[in-house]
């Protein structure tokens, strides 16, 4: 289902343990990672993860809160959004 696709954007200074920290939280929440891309923007590390939350028993709200919390623990800003907003905005 389209509604179950979420995009997580993590940004901040590059350091050890970013992927591990976020992935670990996702595993605990039973959210599946489908794709990961990363880039450097204005000296900032930016990682984007496409995930599917259809198998998770947690609500979007909980998933978002948990991810933001684990982002804070490693000093990274985390954005969690339903993927639809990107699909709508950038495709005709």
């Amino acid at each position, binding site marked *: 289902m389209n509604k179950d*696709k979420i*995009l997580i*954007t993590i940004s901040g200074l590059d350091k050890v343990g970013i992927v591990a920290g976020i992935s670990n939280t996702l595993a605990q929440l039973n959210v599946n990672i*489908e*794709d990961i*891309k990363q*880039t450097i*923007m204005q000296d900032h590390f*930016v990682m*984007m993860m*496409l995930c599917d939350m259809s198998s998770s028993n947690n609500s*979007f*709200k909980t998933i*978002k809160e948990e991810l933001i919390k684990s982002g804070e623990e490693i000093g990274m800003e985390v*954005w*969690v*959004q*339903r*993927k*639809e*907003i*990107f699909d*709508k*905005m*950038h495709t*005709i």
Partner: protein
Amino acid sequence: MADFNEKDIIETIQMIKVHHLDIRTTTLALSLRDCISEDIKIAGDKIYKKITKYAKNLKKYADDLENEFSIPIINKRIAITPISLIGESAKNPDYIYLAKILDEAASEVGVDFIGGYSALIEKGCTKGDEIFLESIPEALATTSKLCSSVNLATSKAGINMKGVLKTADIIKKSALLTADKDGLGAAKFVCFCNSVSDNPFMAGAYCGINEPECALNIGVSGPGVVRWAIENMPKDAPLGEVANTIKKTAFKITTTGELIGRELASRLNIPFGVIDLSLAPTPAKGDSVAGIFQAMGLEQAGAHGTTAALAMLNDAVKKGGIMASSYVGGLSGAFIPVSEDAGMINAARQGVLTIDKLEAMTSVCSVGLDMIAIPGDTPATTIAGMIADEMAIGMINKKTTAVRIIPVPNKKEGDWVKFGGLLGEAPIMAMNKLDSSVFVNRSGRIPAPIHSLNN
């Protein structure tokens, strides 16, 4: 596996985080035609019940969507059938009572504003309309969420000049009754030519009598995003290319609004109405229509060339937006309020943006002379002249025009006024001192223009 493009993701997040892309309003339009009663108390009860039933979850669901898409939804509003029509069948048409009921219902469901304390009098008043008009200043002074509007002219009916003078009086009284808040009452009132029955923006939102039972109308915002897109272009890029960039940006802004609108309508289990393609500024730095003119290459809003820049902007926003949505409506044009736009405020403060220039600008965009603070001692006849001019622009050009001005009590040209929040702040602007009184006191109706006879 679904695909995604990292540049798109970063652009979207920048649009929201840095350049103030937001959903300006989600407005529930609700018909109150079935609330009419001979007894005003019964009408009031029906109105309260209907509003609190339909709008019960508006705020909660909008907040949920804000969280899911990480895009701010600034205002949640309700627009109702012009209340003049609902109250006039009552034996005791106590409109102040209805105003309080509407305000209470709006507070109960947690919306920011409720609009529709309105009358449509372009051709003249009914007895009920006359009683209603008298109630507007007190209604605005004794409520906090209520917004009021009056339609004074259309391209088909002409301009009700008696109504224009009466409206000038309403504006003066509304400001005076709220003198302790710098005339805030007048900021919650707007008069129109060719008012729009599915407009989601305040102060002029109402649910037209030709509208369905209910619908969800959306207003997006994004002057900051448009400015950013233009600033990223070379300074010598031809205007055709600039227009194209605006179109592409408007498309992105509008699809987002459409997505949120459809999702919210579906959760509320009501039909999606329209998306209003307007660029609505806020006092926040960068979220400014005047900033777009600067990005296009004008020193400030008010420079010669501003009207041309605004005409192109307004048109390009529509061309880009129309592709992005099935149903476009409302006002759909760039807004040029003074006190709500940091760039306009600056230009007005320096005296380079005048009311005359603003009037010229309203001939190429929606909506009109908006959020302009003027000296409190401006005669009602001068305000009436100002309204008549604006109505004429709308009538002849078959477009919506409006006037929302605040004659700030006890303040004079050059003084400063702060309304707070989205209403912003502004200097008191200079008015033309010439006398219009004999003209506006002639009363009667300016006949509809020849091109209204198009059958």
